[in-house]
């Protein structure tokens, strides 16, 4: 285990000053996520334009450094992508966190991937994986516009 890998500068920075922590005006998709065990909560707002491109994305919520950083980085990386691409990024990220050691998608630039890989430190902290994935699951749910609230418990 390695705390330094978990709490990298980037994580601490995004955790302390999360980007896109607000509510998108005129959002047309949204979903809530919740981890009943620890009480972490996130609400993701999306504005897709007519071409199904992410015009804006934001989130509200409370949580640990990992979950805030994860949501912050996610919203940064996903803006401007098409719905299909977003789904691919999400899946790639979730697979990386759970099994693989790298990101395979062809959508993100190398520097974006490097940023995202900063979250891979949670792999050594199984109880914290949920913190890192909650906002991502919630994003999926927002895109699918499924009404049910995401419980990170199902991870």
């Amino acid at each position, binding site marked *: 285990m390695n705390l330094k890998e978990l709490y990298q500068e980037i994580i601490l920075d995004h955790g302390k000053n999360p980007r896109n922590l607000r509510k998108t005006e005129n959002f047309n998709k949204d979903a809530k996520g*919740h981890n*009943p*065990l620890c009480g972490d909560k996130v609400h993701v707002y999306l504005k897709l334009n007519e071409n199904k491109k992410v015009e804006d994305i934001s989130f509200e919520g409370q949580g640990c450094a990992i979950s805030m950083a994860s949501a912050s980085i996610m919203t940064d990386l996903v803006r401007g992508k098409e719905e299909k691409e977003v789904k691919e990024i999400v899946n790639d990220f979730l697979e990386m966190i759970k099994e693989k050691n790298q990101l395979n998608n062809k959508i993100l630039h190398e520097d974006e991937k490097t940023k995202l890989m900063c979250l891979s430190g949670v792999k050594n*902290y*199984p*109880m*914290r994986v949920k913190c890192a994935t909650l906002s991502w699951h919630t994003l999926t749910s927002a895109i699918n516009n499924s009404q049910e*609230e995401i*419980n990170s*418990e*199902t991870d």
Partner: protein
Amino acid sequence: MNIQNIKKEFPIFKNKVQNNDLVYLDSANSSQKPLVVVDRIYDFYTKEFSNVGRSVHYLAVAATNLYENTRISVQKYINAKEKEEIVFTKGATEAINLVASSFGQKYLKEGDEVLISELEHHSNYVPWHYLRKSKGIKIEFAEINKNGEISLEEVEKKITSKTKIIALTHLSNVTGAILPIKQITEFAHSKGIPVLVDGCQSAPHMKLDMQELGCDFYAISCHKMYGPTGLGILYAKKKWLEELPPYQGGGGMIGEVKKSGITYGDLPNKYEAGTMATAQVIAFNESIKFINEIGIKNIENHEEELIRYGEEVLRKNNSVKLIGSPKKRGAVLSFTIDGIHPHDIATILDEDGVAIRAGHHCCQILHDKLDLTASARASIGVYNTKDDFDKLNSSINKCKKIFNSK
């Protein structure tokens, strides 16, 4: 593992009980425990103890993983489709109470019928009786045939348009009859009726396959299955666990809690309120490994041969009357002896180290039907041998001598 040497895995047989070798023929009541299971409990408490699920520190994470590993082992062992279909309870009794309470609350109303059988253990009758009292439902009893079995035809006959659930034992803890659960379930499902199976006596002795069996609910008692006391399992098809209301309320089973209302957690948490039997769940993984290492098929063969031998021995003993003669008999032999009350039999046998059970075995309905107040019961586990039945037999002869019975 060699089935002939299996007894060595059970430390209890190393010591004398009142100067006798223990001849343990009370496994239907509760089985003895192999050393691996006891060691696991010991190690967990002395080296790894923590509560599960709630803390993020190292011990808690490790314990949570161990706990969930058992769930996966159970899932595989009984071939359930998903691990969320495995709910840990404090025993089979609680598992059945859970279903009766949650199913009853949502789906049963006055005049509805629950179909059980005359073979049922009190644990598969009293919970339904509560609904009879609170909701005015009716309980119908499938009747035994002369062999002490419940046939598919009898169940079909007793189903009416009001039957809302069928709850049957898989293996009678008195007559040893094995019920045709698969066929019953198929028929029941063709009428849209769910089936609960009391698997207490079958689980330790038979290969279980939930997807093959098709039943909706299956209750297991871990302490009868070489596992620790204070633990049971409810298997339930996911759709039921999703649809039914939760049973007990408390920590760990909630989603969001507000003064005004509550949402419930995901499966199977929704049904596991409060601190669970952590150490017992973790140790039960060893029970399953133990069974798997021998192979349930080997256990079945061993026990089948043994019970056939026991049946033969007792049949040859005049004045012993076997209860039930099912075509396929599980690990149970109940009997009476003319002129000697089962309690007296048990006491005299005990003096020789032969442990059996005497009483109604929580099956008063069945004993009433057979016009008995009590019976004696010898039941086996993987550690028993033919020798045990020989000793049983010679102790029975001692009873007869004391009572001057022929």
